[in-house]
Structures are given as C-alpha cells and as structure tokens.
C-alpha cells in the first residue's frame, strides 16, 4: 500500500513537472575581478535573446541562473557543481577563459549535465579531448579557427616574413599556431616569436627586438594589453602593417582605442560591422538596450540562446534529456547574427570567418565617425580543421609554444 502510494506520488510529481515545462539554464561568467566587464557582455547577449522571447522557449519557461565564476578554474568547478546539484539545471552555458572551459567540461561529464562553452576556445575541447566530454557542444569557436584563414589571407596579400608577438598562455599559443601553420604551408615564414607574459603593461623591452626585415607583425593581445601594444608601437615609430588575432581588436576593446589602430587587420567569426540586415538590427537593438556596440562575447551568447530555442522548438518545449539534446543541437543549421552556422562531427561550429580592417567611418546609420571592424574578406563555412581534413589535422599535436616549430627563426 505504502509502495503504491509512493508510485502515485512520484507519478503526480512527474506529471506536474511535465506540465510546468521548465527549462533551467545555468550561466557561468566572471562578474567580479578583471574580466567582470566581459562577463557582463556575455550575460547581456544571452539575456537580450531571453527578453525578446519573454523567457519562453517554445512553451518551456526559462529559469536563467547566473553564477560568478571569477575567471578562476577552481571557482568555476564549484559554481558548476552548485548549478548542477543544487539548482538541478538542464544545462550550463558559458565560462570565459580556456582554462575555465577545461574546468567545467569534466563536471558536465561527471554529473551528466549538458555544457555549452559559448566562449572558451581551447582547441582540444572539441578536438583531441572531445571523447571525454559527451555532454558538451560548443557554440563559439576554437582559438585557431579564425586564424587559419588569416594565414591564407596573409599569403594572398603577399606577406612573406612575419614576426609574431603574443600573450604567453595556451590561448596565445593556439592562435599563433593556427596562423603559422597555414601561413607557412602557403609559402610564408614566421621569422620570430616573442612571448610577453599575459597582462604585460609595458612593451618597451619587446618592441626594439622586433626584426627590422619583417614585412608585418602578427599580434595577439588580450584585454588591456590590446590597448597598450598598438600605442607603444606607434610611439616607437614602427610602421609595419599589423595583423592581429581576433581578441586584439574585438568590439570589447575597440571603443577604447584611438587612431593608432587604423588599418590593422584581424580575423574572427563575428564583427559588429557585418553588413547584413540581421546584424544591423542586432547592433541597433543591443546598443539601445545596453549603450554599447555588441562584442563577439555578446553575439556568441545571443546565438547560443537562439540555438537552445531552436532545439526546444523541435521538442515542443519538452526537455529531451542530455544525450538527445546534444545530438539535436549538433544537428542544427541556423541563420545566426554572425551568419550561417552548422556543426561539424566534433560538435564545433562551421561558420564564416571575417577578415576585418579597423576603419573610422559611419556605420549602421549612426551619424558619428567611429572605429569599426570593416569586413574586407569573408571565408565562408570554415571548420576547425580548415582544409586539412579531420584525420590529418588531429594527427598533429595541439598548437603550443613550440609547435609548429619556428623553422625560420634565427
């Protein structure tokens, strides 16, 4: 009798939860510390999509829980545990740094909870380590993904000898590695690699060591470094063209920059200056709501929300379970703000990569001259393996400080 009562109660409980159709999304972003502003951009992007849908994904009421991961791996682990165990979220979205992505992914495996890294770009999450993370699908990018085409672009624009200067941590190594691999395969040479530590404030000791006979400088800077480097470069009279990694000139740092960055070229899967009606509308709405131009951090999370919504549309708002959700999400093909996005078999987006040049102009109908990342070339449907093919690509080790080796450094 007791047992029967229990079953009835359980059944009641189950049906109640089915009727309510709730979707709990845990969101991890730094809300304090040096990355707090980026975390705000991430949250705003996701929140904006939620607000547009009035918190309703195809009949499922969305509960959105934001936790401060402080940009630290151990804190991310704890917050992910909290979201999955205490709040019983269906999925966790976000994380900022590659290191936090690496910290959250095993928690998702252990607790069988979906994890969507919308920003962490560590290559191996969706490459050599993917088998460890069956409940993960990435909606952002891999560090090397935009920089493979940029290497090709540098060849096509007749650059021969390039010096790389990049922040000395895994993300920097992977960005430079991607650029170097393609650039050298099409005939270019990286003649020098300089690795200032992450957070360098004075590039005085590094700039004079840049080889005089190089035709261009490839730079990968993060946060305040991105502001400082071009300034000091201009002050020291270096006139070489600058090619940069995506985060050196993204819309998060661009508004704080001056004319010293005019003409600098970089690559990323998003630019606020993409000239499509969809993006124009997105930029206008975002700017109206939050008072600034959206960065790729905002776009990536806006699009992630959109993708989750698309999956929920297919299930009429019912939670399909983690395995099924990941499979359905990885099968999506959507027309996002950044352009068409689909997924490869390792659950990383195949997407357009934009080669962008910093220009001062009027854009999207705003009447003031501002700095924009004008798109000068689009490489459509770029996968994380570029043109190498999955097997061949995965045979090589992950890009690091010493790979590819610097053959032309003397």
């Amino acid at each position: 009798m007791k047992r029967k009562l229990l079953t009835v109660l359980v059944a009641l409980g189950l049906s109640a939860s089915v009727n309510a159709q709730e979707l709990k999304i845990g969101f991890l972003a730094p809300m304090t510390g040096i990355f707090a502003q980026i975390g705000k951009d991430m949250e705003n992007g996701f929140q904006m999509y939620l607000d547009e849908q009035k918190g309703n994904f195809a009949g499922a009421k969305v509960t959105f829980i934001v936790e401060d991961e402080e940009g630290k791996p151990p804190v991310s682990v704890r917050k992910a545990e909290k979201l999955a165990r205490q709040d019983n979220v269906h999925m966790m979205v976000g994380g900022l740094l590659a290191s936090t992505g690496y910290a959250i992914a095993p928690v998702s495996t252990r607790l069988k909870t979906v994890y969507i890294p919308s920003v962490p770009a560590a290559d191996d999450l969706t490459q050599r380590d993917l088998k460890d993370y069956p409940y993960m699908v990435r909606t952002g990018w891999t560090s090397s993904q935009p920089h493979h085409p940029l290497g090709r672009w540098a060849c096509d624009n007749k650059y021969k000898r390039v010096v790389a200067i990049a922040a000395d941590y895994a993300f920097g190594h992977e960005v430079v590695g991607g650029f170097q691999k393609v650039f050298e395969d099409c005939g270019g040479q990286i003649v020098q690699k300089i690795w200032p530590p992450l957070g360098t404030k004075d590039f005085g000791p590094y700039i004079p060591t840049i080889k005089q006979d190089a035709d261009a400088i490839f730079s990968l800077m993060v946060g305040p470094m991105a502001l400082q480097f071009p300034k000091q470069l201009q002050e020291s009279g270096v006139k070489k063209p600058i090619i940069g990694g995506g985060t050196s000139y993204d819309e998060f740092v661009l508004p704080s920059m001056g004319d010293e960055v005019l003409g600098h070229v970089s690559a990323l899967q998003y630019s606020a200056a993409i000239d499509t009606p969809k993006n124009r509308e997105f930029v206008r709405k975002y700017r109206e709501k939050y008072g600034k131009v959206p960065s790729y951090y905002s776009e990536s999370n806006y699009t992630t929300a959109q993708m989750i919504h698309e999956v929920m549309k297919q299930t009429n708002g019912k939670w399909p379970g983690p395995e099924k959700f990941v499979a359905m999400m990885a099968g999506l093909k959507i027309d996002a703000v950044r352009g068409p996005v689909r997924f490869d078999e390792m659950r990383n987006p195949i997407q357009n990569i934009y080669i962008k040049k910093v220009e001062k102009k009027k854009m999207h109908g705003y009447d003031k001259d501002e700095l924009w990342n004008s798109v000068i070339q689009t490489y459509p449907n770029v996968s994380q393996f570029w043109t190498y093919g999955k097997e061949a690509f995965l045979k090589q080790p992950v890009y690091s400080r010493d790979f590819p080796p610097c053959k032309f450094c003397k």
Partner: protein
Amino acid sequence: MNRILVLLGILGVVAVLAPFTGPFVILLLAQILVLGIMAMSVDLLLGYTGLPSLGQAAYLGVGAYLTAILATKFGIGLGWDFWLVVVLGMLSGAATAAFFGLFAIRASGVYFLMITLALGMCVWGLAYRWNSLTGGDNGINMRGRPVFGIRLADDLTFFYVVLGFFLASFFALHLLVNSPFGKSLVGIRERELRMRILGYNTWLHKYIAFVVAGAFGGLAGVLWAHLNGIVSPSDVILTTSVDALLMVVLGGPGTLVGGLIGATAVVFLREYLATLVQWWQYVLGAVYVLTILYLPGGIMSLFKGGKA
C-alpha cells in the same frame, strides 16, 4: 580542554547531519575542512610563533600539483597508494618549506611577510610557466578520486575522509602547541630576545614551526586537488594565501579552532552571498575590517576560554 569538546560536539553534529543536507552543501563542508587544515597551519605560524606568512598557498600548491601529476602522468594515488601520496604530499610541502625557510626565517614582521609573498609567487610562476609539467594556465584535470575499498568519488564518503584528516591534523597540532616546544614558540612570539638570552635557539624553533606548517599545507593541497578535480595556477595565487591569513585573523589567531571558524564564515559568506548579489566582495571586505577593528581576537574571543 573545554573548547575541544565543544569543537568535537559541533563536528559530530555536522557529521551526523551531513547526509541529510544537499550534495552541494556537503562539498562546501569538505571545502571548509580542507581550508581549515590550511588555516591551522597558518595559525601555527601567525598565532603561536608570531610569523605572518603570505606564502602558504605555495605548499598547498606543491601538494596539489604533486597529487595531480602523480595521478595523471603515473597513475599513482588512485587506489591504496592514496596514502602514499598523502605522505609524499606532506613531505613535499615540508621540503619546500625547509628550503624557503632558509631565506624567510632570517626576517621578521613585514619583511617576513614580503619574503614569503615573493617565495609564494615563485611557485605560482613555476606552475604558470612550466607547461610540460603543470599544463600551464589550463592546469591539470584529474580523472576521478581514489578508490580503495571505499569510493571517494562519493562526496559524502570524501567528506568523512576529509573530516578524519582534519581531526588528525587538529590533534597533532594541538599536541604540538601544548608541548614544551609549542610553549617556547609562544615565548618567541611574545619576546624573541628574552628567549634567546634564556638560551633558546630561536631560529631553529621558528624554522621547525615553518616546516611543520609547510607539511600541513601540503596535506591540505592533496585533499584540495581531489576536492576540485582540477589543479591550476589560480590555486597558488596570492589570494589563496591572503584568504588563509584572513581566515585565521577572522576566527582568532592562536586558537587553532579559529581557523576552522574563519574558513566556515568565509566559505559560506562567499558561496551564498555571491549567488544573491554581485557586490558580495564589499560585504566580505566590511566583515574583515569590522572584525579587525572591534574583535582583534577574532570570532573566538566572543566565547569564553579564548585565550589572548
């Protein structure tokens, strides 16, 4: 003696109630105990010997990295050899402290603070830059906790094991500070010159206390690595050392128990406040300032029997 009974009583109640709390609360409790071990090791230096160390994260880091490297590269420490790793973790913490102590013990006061800070940053630098060994910025992910008869992957079991380690550490340190050796440490804290004139080798006393603190820091590191399942340079940063120091100050230096109380206050304030409001750091800061202004003896001084 009374205080110990109270502590045992409270821990006993917590141990009995733990299975009925949520899984996340159990994790927090385990975290508090691990940080409690570390805070007690700081207390041995700050509260009993009068040495404010800002480098305790170094020993936590050495223990944690040793655990992670042994587990991921050599598969050691995931079965019965977990106990071997515990011993090795304590030894490596002690060895690092023995080395650092040669530089640090010469100084006192602010100079001691600065030297330990610098030495702690050296360990951080190694963790951050020695990519091939430490995984650099990304750290080391561990694949599960040890299994030896009992499965530590179960958070409740892990909590009880950590509780055992905490109690063992507490009694070991309690014996130490109440031994003649411990009394002479207090003597050094009160007036080092007088102790020297009385014929004590104060350098050696301080050095030994420093090494013992390092060993317990290493032990906390071993547990810390298994608690989080990941070890990264952000475990070894200055904030970890500062936190440990603040926990001791908050709870009450020179009481051992104070470290645990401080850890409890900090962890719960941080975890629950951070969920409620984004300006949680201001509240934590205010708590620190108010404690130092109005309760220089820490929370413990609220209770009778807290000795100065």
